[in-house]
């Protein structure tokens, strides 16, 4: 795959917030990687193909990037709402309307089990054996206490058995 084709496909899969930066970094990275392959004797076409192959399957990279960028987008939206509330309290009383339907469908990062996880499994084992994967779900489908940050699992163990496809929540782990 050419670098341009790879980035075009990546761009279609990423959320708006942070997308430009991610694409710019990916482009520079792929240019470096292609240059390395050309120095090793590859043609321009083969060098770009090798570079995009080394970067990873575009759907896998997009999934992992989207999970991180979605967290940033959610936090920026929250910070903006707080800022608006503070300004309103200082100047005049205003009311902030939230589009309930848009809020319910907002892509929200979660971790889901990729295989059966026995009770008592340490978080480090979950990470080392790829027993979970990050994904995004509509906000209306995200369970209370759903975990989005893998670092939460460090030092914790599962309290119950988890089945493939199940969202990981705080309640599923011993404190």
């Amino acid at each position, binding site marked *: 795959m050419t670098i341009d084709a790879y980035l075009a496909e990546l761009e279609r899969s990423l959320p708006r917030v942070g997308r430009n930066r*991610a694409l710019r970094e990916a482009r*520079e*990275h792929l240019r470096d990687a292609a240059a390395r392959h050309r120095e090793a004797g590859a043609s321009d076409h083969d060098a770009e193909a090798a570079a995009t192959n080394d970067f990873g399957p575009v759907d896998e990279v997009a999934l*992992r*990037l989207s999970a991180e960028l979605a967290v940033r987008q959610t936090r920026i939206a929250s910070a903006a709402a707080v800022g608006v509330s503070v300004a309103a309290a200082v100047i005049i009383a205003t009311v902030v309307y939230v589009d309930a339907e848009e809020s319910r469908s907002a892509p929200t990062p979660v971790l889901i089990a990729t295989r059966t996880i026995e009770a008592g499994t340490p978080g480090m084992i979950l990470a080392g054996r*790829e027993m979970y994967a990050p994904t995004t779900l509509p906000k209306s489908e995200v369970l209370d206490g759903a975990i989005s940050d893998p670092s939460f699992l*460090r030092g914790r163990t599962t309290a119950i058995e988890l089945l493939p496809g199940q969202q990981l929540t705080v309640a599923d782990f011993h404190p």
Partner: protein
Amino acid sequence: MNDRLRGHVDVLLLSALQAGPAHGYRLAEIVRERSGGSFDLPEGTVYPSLYRLERRRFVASRWMTVDGRRRRVYRLTAGGTAELERQRSEWREFTRAMEAVVT
């Protein structure tokens, strides 16, 4: 080997940054070189990890001109150094326990 690494990319990148500020491509190179080629992750996976580390204030980044091109360069923060030491300690304990059981 590489499948087991996916859960440890964060600590690999924090370790690579101890040598000094670097952009994502260089960090992927450092991990590959230091491991003698054993750790050859899909290079695109470094960026979700870097964004997560930055969100948690373990690394900071800014655009800089490197070799005539604009690059996002990352550096370790004080919090990142502390987190790296904590993870190293955790890893040493984990490997000690594993070796005690499996060897």
